[in-house]
């Protein structure tokens, strides 16, 4: 947001006790007066009336710094809605199939319906929703709300016909959704549990207008949608920087010594810290990088990591250690630099009021969490951290990241021993595999276009559907590159989208993961891309650089690649060169394999 936020209105939006009318007015006021730098469009589709969800989505979007425009679908027409949303340039869809309304008062009917009748309803429902998913493939995200029951069971504790049918229909939804990478499931029963069954529904409007949900329920649903969207692409947390004393264990290692710190699984409060370490280890398995950022003697902390019998996190789970007496903002800056990630990709966890305040004031882009004074609250804080890290879903390749980053850190330390940079590069035995239209990598390619900010020439985000379409389109080619060296396999870490038009190959997008920058890989692939373009009848290569807040490091990339600057319009730089004059920098230390 670029303008001063009207404080009173923002206060209303953060106040859980604000009345519905106050929230509506505040949403309108903030949207009217604040110039948002980020916007998104959300479509809502349901077989129930949930118009009020739009207000709450706008509320929670504003709280993440995004202006959301809502398009309401028609009643019970998901396939038609997707078409409507496409025309309205919607990015995210919230799909809310409501179980009791699949047939009139379906829950009440179920006990008396023949199994064949239920099965045929299920078949019809699946067919419609599969078609909906298929047509919604090109949207960035589809938030699919799982079914839940509307009426409470008259026999609590026993599974009645409704419970059985809801579970079965949910299995069908899960199974069908699993084929689509852009679908995120939302557990509605969990929302009902958290707001309370009695508060979740408003039967008055259900029977009059098919509007079953209360405002409280829809507010919580909206909060979870925005959270699952990670503030609509604004936040991708990649690393957690952890304090040690009273964060990873109870007590102070320098004073309480190895056997004095509290970390025993069966004793309070050690059991809380032990449990939190397990949670962190789980995040690490899911691709989140764990770092230490602690004011301590490095040897004491190493001793704890290696020799404490109850330590869950070991050396191999920690990608980077900043254990010293420097101030924490300085250490966090170094962590960002050494891992080649932005400070806004880092979560910082510490117990100290002072350290948290210092990081919050000096590095507001770092997401700071404080270990609560009441330790039994710690799991709640950890859950919030986990939700932030995992909400968007994680693809397989992300899970191997800690290993890759560590291999890279080792490479950094080897660097000093070589006489020249090129000697060093040669010793890496770099191999690059360039693949054209790799259909098995669509998910990872799309993910990379969503996540890369720094080495990204155009900062165009592609959904999986868009990548798939570009691969099918004869006028377009999607190149992806995989990098490996003798330290490890960095995986798919670069993407170039080339569009052929009017005798020119136009670079629509080019981006790379910062993990592999600085070794010439970014230059090594262009010989092949240019040769293929010439084969396809092109005479020119054209490209452009679009500036963002994050990508200054590549502002002159195309100059360095050897293209000629044609024009510079407010920082957007257009380049071009005849293919027969194009000579990208020589990279003899890289072996390039070209696959298709």
């Amino acid at each position, binding site marked *: 947001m670029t303008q001063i936020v009207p404080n009173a209105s923002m206060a209303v939006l953060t106040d859980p006790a604000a009345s519905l009318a106050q929230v509506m007015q505040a949403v309108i006021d903030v949207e009217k007066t604040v110039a948002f730098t980020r916007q998104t469009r959300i479509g809502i589709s349901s077989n129930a009336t949930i118009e009020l969800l739009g207000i709450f989505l706008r509320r929670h979007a504003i709280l993440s710094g995004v202006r959301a425009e809502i398009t309401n679908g028609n009643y019970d027409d998901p396939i038609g809605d997707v078409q409507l949303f496409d025309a309205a340039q919607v990015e995210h869809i919230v799909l809310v199939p409501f179980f009791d309304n699949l047939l009139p008062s379906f829950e009440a009917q179920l006990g008396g319906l023949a199994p064949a009748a239920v099965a045929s309803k299920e078949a019809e429902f699946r067919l419609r929703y599969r078609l909906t998913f298929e047509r919604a493939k090109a949207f960035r995200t589809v938030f699919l709300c799982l079914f839940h029951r509307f009426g409470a069971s008259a026999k609590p504790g026993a599974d009645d016909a409704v419970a059985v049918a809801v579970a079965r229909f949910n299995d069908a939804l899960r199974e069908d959704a699993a084929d689509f990478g852009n679908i995120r499931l939302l557990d509605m029963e969990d929302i009902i549990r958290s707001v309370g069954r009695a508060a979740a529904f408003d039967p008055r*409007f259900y029977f009059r207008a098919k509007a079953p949900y209360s405002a409280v329920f829809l507010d919580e649903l909206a909060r979870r949608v925005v959270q699952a969207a990670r503030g609509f692409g604004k936040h991708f947390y990649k690393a957690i920087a952890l304090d040690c004393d009273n964060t990873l264990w109870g007590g102070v290692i320098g004073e309480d010594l190895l056997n004095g710190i509290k970390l025993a699984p069966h004793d309070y409060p050690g059991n809380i810290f032990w449990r939190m370490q397990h949670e962190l280890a789980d995040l690490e398995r899911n691709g989140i990088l764990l770092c230490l950022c602690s004011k301590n003697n490095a040897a004491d902390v190493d001793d704890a990591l290696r020799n404490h019998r109850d330590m869950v996190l070991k050396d191999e789970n920690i990608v980077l250690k900043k254990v010293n007496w420097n101030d924490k903002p300085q250490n966090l800056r170094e962590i960002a630099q050494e891992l080649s990630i932005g400070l806004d990709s880092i979560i910082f966890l510490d117990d100290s009021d002072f350290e948290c305040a210092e990081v919050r004031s000096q590095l507001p882009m770092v997401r700071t969490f404080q270990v609560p004074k009441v330790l039994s609250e710690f799991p709640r804080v950890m859950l919030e951290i986990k939700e932030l890290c995992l909400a968007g879903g994680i693809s397989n390749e992300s899970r191997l990241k800690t290993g890759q980053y560590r291999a890279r850190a080792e490479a950094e330390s080897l660097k000093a021993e070589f006489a020249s940079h090129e000697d060093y590069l040669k010793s890496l035995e770099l191999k690059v595999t360039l693949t054209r239209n790799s259909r098995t990598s669509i998910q990872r390619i799309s993910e990379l276009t969503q996540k890369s900010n720094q080495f990204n020439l155009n900062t165009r985000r592609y959904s999986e559907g868009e990548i798939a379409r570009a691969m099918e389109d004869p006028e377009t080619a999607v190149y992806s590159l995989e990098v490996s060296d003798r330290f490890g396999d960095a995986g798919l870490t670069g993407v170039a989208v080339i569009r052929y038009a009017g005798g020119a190959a136009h670079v629509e997008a080019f981006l790379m993961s910062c993990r592999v920058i600085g070794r010439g890989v970014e230059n090594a692939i262009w010989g092949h891309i240019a040769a293929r373009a010439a084969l396809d009848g092109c005479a020119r290569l054209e490209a452009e650089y679009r500036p963002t807040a994050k990508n200054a490091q590549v502002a002159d990339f195309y100059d360095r690649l050897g293209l000629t600057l044609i024009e510079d319009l407010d920082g957007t730089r257009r380049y071009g060169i005849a293919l027969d004059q194009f000579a990208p920098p020589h990279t003899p230390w890289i072996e390039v394999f070209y696959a298709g």
Partner: protein
Amino acid sequence: MLDELALKQVMASVLNIDAATIGENTSIDTIESWTSLRHMNLILALEDEFRVSIPDDEAANITDYPLIRLVLKHLLEG
């Protein structure tokens, strides 16, 4: 006591109109944004604001300003 200004402000917020224009003639027939869907939101917002529960039958029928005022007065003042 019913705070009529507060009532007008709630209606203005939900219906996205200027509170000063709300008067005796304001009704679902005269306000374009007052649709049946918005009406539901209006009832929810009124209940939330004045901490009352509007009975089912009345909720559907109070579709002009004087009627809303009457029902709320009744609920608040007994």
